[in-house]
C-alpha cells in the first residue's frame, strides 16, 4: 500500500528541484554572451590558424553538429541566427571557441563541450572562413 504522505513529499521534492533549477537558470542567463567571455579566453589564438585542412574538417564538423539549426550554408534556419553576421565577423577566435564550449543556453545555443577542444577550434576555423 502506498503511503500517500510520503508520495506527496517525494513529488514535492522533485517539483522543488525542477523549480529551483529553473530559477537558477533565470538568474544566470542574460543572453549577452560576449561580455561574459573572460579576457584569457578572448585572447586565445586558434592553434589551427592558417591550416586549410582545419577549415575542411571544421566544415565537416559543422555539417554534423551545427547545420540542423544554422543551415548547411550557415545562413540560419527558422529563428536560428545566420552566422554570416557582423557579430561573428567581429568576434575573436577565442570568443567563438568560448561560445562553442559554453553555449548561450538562455538563447537556445547548447554547449558543445562534448566535442574535444581541437574540434571546436576546427569549427572556429570554418566559421572564420565564411566571413
Amino acid at each position, binding site marked *: 500500500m502506498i503511503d500517500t504522505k510520503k508520495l506527496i513529499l517525494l513529488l514535492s*521534492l522533485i517539483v522543488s528541484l525542477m523549480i529551483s*533549477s529553473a530559477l537558477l*537558470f533565470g538568474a544566470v542567463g542574460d543572453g549577452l554572451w560576449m561580455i561574459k567571455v573572460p579576457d584569457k579566453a578572448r585572447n586565445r589564438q586558434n592553434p589551427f590558424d592558417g591550416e586549410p585542412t582545419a577549415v*575542411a574538417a571544421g566544415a565537416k564538423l559543422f555539417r554534423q553538429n551545427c547545420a*540542423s539549426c544554422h543551415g548547411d550554408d550557415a545562413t540560419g534556419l527558422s529563428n536560428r541566427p545566420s552566422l554570416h553576421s557582423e557579430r561573428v565577423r567581429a568576434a575573436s577566435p577565442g570568443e567563438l571557441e568560448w561560445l562553442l564550449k559554453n553555449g548561450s543556453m538562455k538563447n537556445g545555443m*547548447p*554547449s558543445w563541450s*562534448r566535442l574535444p577542444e*581541437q574540434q571546436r577550434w576546427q569549427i572556429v576555423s570554418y566559421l572564420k572562413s565564411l566571413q
Partner: protein
Amino acid sequence: MSRSLKAIAVLLGFAPLLLAPLNARAQENYFVTYTHHMEEPGNLEFATKSVSGFPQAGNAFWGNAIELEYGVKTWWTSEFYLDSQTTANESSVFTGFRFENRFRPLLQEHWINPVLYAEFEDINSADKALLEVVGHDGIEDFLGRNDRSEKKREVELKLILSSNFKGWNVAENMIAEKNIAGEPWEFGYAVAVSRPLSLVASANECRFCRENFALGAELYGGLGDRYSFGLHDTSHYLAPTMAFHMPSGPTFSVSPTAGLNSNSHGFLLRFGVSYEINQFVSRLKGKR
C-alpha cells in the same frame, strides 16, 4: 491488444521518421553513467539499450529498454523508457516504463558540472534492464522464474557530476532510489571515463575515422540502503565501453561487463543503438 503490442505499435509509428535523412548524431558513450551532456533542444533521440546475461544457476536473459530522449531546453532533457525482457525457457514480458528528467543548473562549463536527475519508474519484479544497480541488487534477483507480481513504483534521484578535460570525459553519479510502497532508500554509484580515439577531426568524409570511435570504462554498483549502508551484500560491475558514432547515422555501443563479486553476474553483454532526429517538432510541423 496486449500492452506489448501497443508499445510496438507506438514505436512503428516513428518508423517513417527514421527513414528520412536526418543528419543526426547521438552523444552517449556509457550505458549506466550519465554525463552533463544534454540533448540538444528540439532533438529527439531514439535508442535501445539491451543487456544479455547468462547466470549459471538460472536461465539466460535479454533485457531491453527502448528510450525516447527529448531536448526540452538546453538545460532540460526528458526521457521515457519502455522496458521488456526475454528469459530463455520462460517468457517474454513487458516490464514497465520509466520517466526521467535531467536539469543542468549551471549554464556554463566548469571544472565539475552538476546535473540534477529525477525519475519515476513503474516496473515489476521481472524487469531485467539493469539500467542502474542500487541497494542490495544482485544475481539472486535474476534466478527465479519470471514473476510480475511485485510492482515497483520507485522514485530515483541522482546527482550527476561530470567534467571534460583534454578530450577526456569523467563522470560520477550518486544514486538514491526509493520504492514508494514504503521500502527504505537504496543507494548506488556509477563512475565512468571515456575519450575519442582522435581529438582532431579528419578533413575527409570518412565513416571509420578515429574521431568517430570512443573508448572508455564504467564502474557501478550498489551501496546498500538506509539501514545497511555500505558494500556488504551488494553487487558491482566493471565494464569497458566502446562507441561508434556513424556520421549522419546511428551510434552503436557495446560493453562487455564483468561482475566484481559473488553477488554480481559473472558476465553481462550490453549493446546499444541510438539515433537522433534533429529538430523533431519542427519536422512534425513541416517547418523543415
